[in-house]
């Protein structure tokens, strides 16, 4: 079964060996880039149709069903429509920045995919400070959002960009802090090493994934919340709140540039999903020893798809937050919770050395879980003081 696991790596090597020796390094790089762009582009097309179908199912309608069997060719039709649409640039717009913004938005997001280990030996780049690089590239997109909003010379665009930047800066903090316990316990910033550290099984069948520890579970929850906000998705999509801001910083974009923003949004979602899988869900590792026969990229893809499904599900079921609720949630709940989570992870790591009852895993589990449950309840009540009180409706009964 090893050949199936490494099928992409070996076939890639064979393809590269066809090239003349002097061009082989360049051919290898180009092949990797082409593979990542093809797979992620295909995922983008597939996700748009699955999302529309899924939202349709949640809202009791059919979703797109006219183009091809069950509407499966809808992304192709959408792409053609976007390509052939007129590209309208406002006469007062700052032409250069308006043109460059969608490009600057998508380029760093493409770069993040080179860091993700999609399977065993399937990371394009194993950077020693991979996670840090991931966040650096993520923060570079904020400038593109600003460029898009400012260059449009439209009040809605500027307000939307300001909102988006405030949201992205605020949620970058809990996003980074939620990953810190993983880095602390893996002892490395490299994504490949982090997957390596989650190998093996406790009791012979429970995988040593980070999400199955108390701090990992809390960290994963924090990470998912912050990642949703970071990729501007519902329920945190208020930079594009159409009832208030038309379409936020996208207002003055049309045609292919709009499609690029759309692509950037989905690719950002894929990137954080891939990072979440790598950091908390064991990367490409199988969930049970008897399932090890399936190839590693299959497990990565499976976990990745499950996360994407969770994001679509959340979009279909959760109402949008208000701006003050959004910022309060980030600074008064997620950040303190992430800091407490770091402490819990440290105690989880150090408690076996204390001897006595702390050497048994269930005891450590209970101790760290208690450390996290009480702050969760307390912080949650502090953020929303009316939680649990009877709701009063002004106009409805």
């Amino acid at each position, binding site marked *: 079964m090893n050949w199936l696991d490494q099928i992409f790596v070996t076939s890639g090597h064979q393809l590269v060996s066809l090239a003349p020796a002097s061009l082989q390094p360049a051919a290898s790089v180009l092949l990797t880039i082409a593979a990542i762009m093809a797979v992620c582009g295909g995922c983008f097309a597939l996700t748009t149709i699955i999302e529309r179908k899924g939202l349709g199912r949640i809202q009791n309608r059919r979703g797109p069903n006219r183009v091809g069997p069950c509407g499966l060719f809808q992304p192709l039709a959408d792409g053609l429509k976007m390509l052939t649409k007129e590209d309208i640039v406002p006469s007062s717009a700052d032409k250069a920045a308006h043109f460059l913004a969608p490009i600057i938005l998508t380029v760093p997001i493409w770069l993040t995919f080179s860091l993700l280990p999609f399977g065993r030996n399937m990371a394009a780049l194993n950077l020693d400070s991979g996670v840090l690089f991931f966040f*650096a590239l993520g*923060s570079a997109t904020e*400038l593109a959002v600003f*460029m898009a909003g400012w260059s449009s010379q439209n009040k809605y665009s500027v307000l939307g960009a300001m909102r988006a930047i405030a949201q992205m800066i605020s949620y970058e903090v809990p996003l980074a802090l939620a990953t810190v316990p993983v880095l602390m316990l893996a002892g490395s910033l490299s994504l490949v090493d982090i997957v390596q550290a989650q190998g093996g099984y406790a009791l012979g069948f429970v995988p040593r994934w980070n999400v199955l520890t108390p701090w990992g579970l809390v960290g994963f929850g924090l990470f998912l919340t912050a990642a949703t906000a970071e990729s501007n998705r519902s329920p945190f999509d208020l930079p594009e709140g159409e009832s208030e801001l038309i379409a936020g910083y996208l207002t003055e974009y049309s045609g292919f540039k709009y499609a690029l923003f759309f692509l950037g949004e989905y690719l950002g979602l894929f990137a954080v999903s891939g990072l979440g899988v790598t950091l908390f869900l064991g990367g490409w590792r199988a969930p049970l020893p008897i399932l090890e026969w399936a190839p590693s990229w299959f497990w990565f893809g499976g976990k990745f798809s499950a996360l994407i499904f969770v994001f679509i599900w959340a979009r279909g079921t959760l109402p949008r937050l208000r701006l003050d609720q959004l910022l309060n949630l980030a600074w008064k709940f997620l950040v303190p919770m992430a800091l407490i989570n770091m402490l819990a992870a440290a105690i989880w790591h150090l408690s076996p050395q204390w001897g006595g009852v702390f050497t048994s895993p269930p005891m450590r589990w209970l101790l760290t879980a208690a450390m996290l449950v009480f702050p969760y309840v307390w912080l949650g009540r502090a953020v929303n003081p009316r939680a649990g009180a009877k709701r009063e409706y002004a106009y409805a009964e």
Partner: protein
Amino acid sequence: MPNNIPFYLAAAVTLGGAIAAMSLRNLVHCALCAAGAFAGLGAIYLQLGAEFVAAAQVLVYVGAIAMLIVFAILLTRGGKVKLTARQTAPNRFVGFLIVLLVCASLAGSILRSPSLQARTLALPEVTAPAQRIGENLMTAYVLPLETVGLLLTAAMLGAVVLAIREEPEARLRSEPTAQRRQALEEANIS
């Protein structure tokens, strides 16, 4: 020669961005070009094998400092000022002198560096550089790290104090008329 192409690209982006940041008329354009120069510098660090420094450069300069500059320009209405006249600095000569001094001191220290005289540049092989940086920060340089942390916390608290809006009730209570009214009431009671 082909191995040098990434370096020339990064150097061109850095220099071009820096020159544009100085000479463009629109302040927001200048800030964006400066961000481009920061990113080019990050690419050069990456090419030199300093991954951690490159990531920190992009994270801090492109992600945070460029945003800060842009916000400062927008909040002070600098972005709306239309500058069409040629740039004229009254003390151009002094500026030129300062540039010359900085360039001379930099060139002097570069020319005297031992790695330039070694002719063949040998990059030291370091395993797990990020881990080494972390260990050094937690052992040898823990005091500077804590000091920086304290300084930043103090700065953040100061920013919060400056930005916080006084509660309307507190303002009412501190108004002299309210105080006088209260004093009058107390006088009536007694």
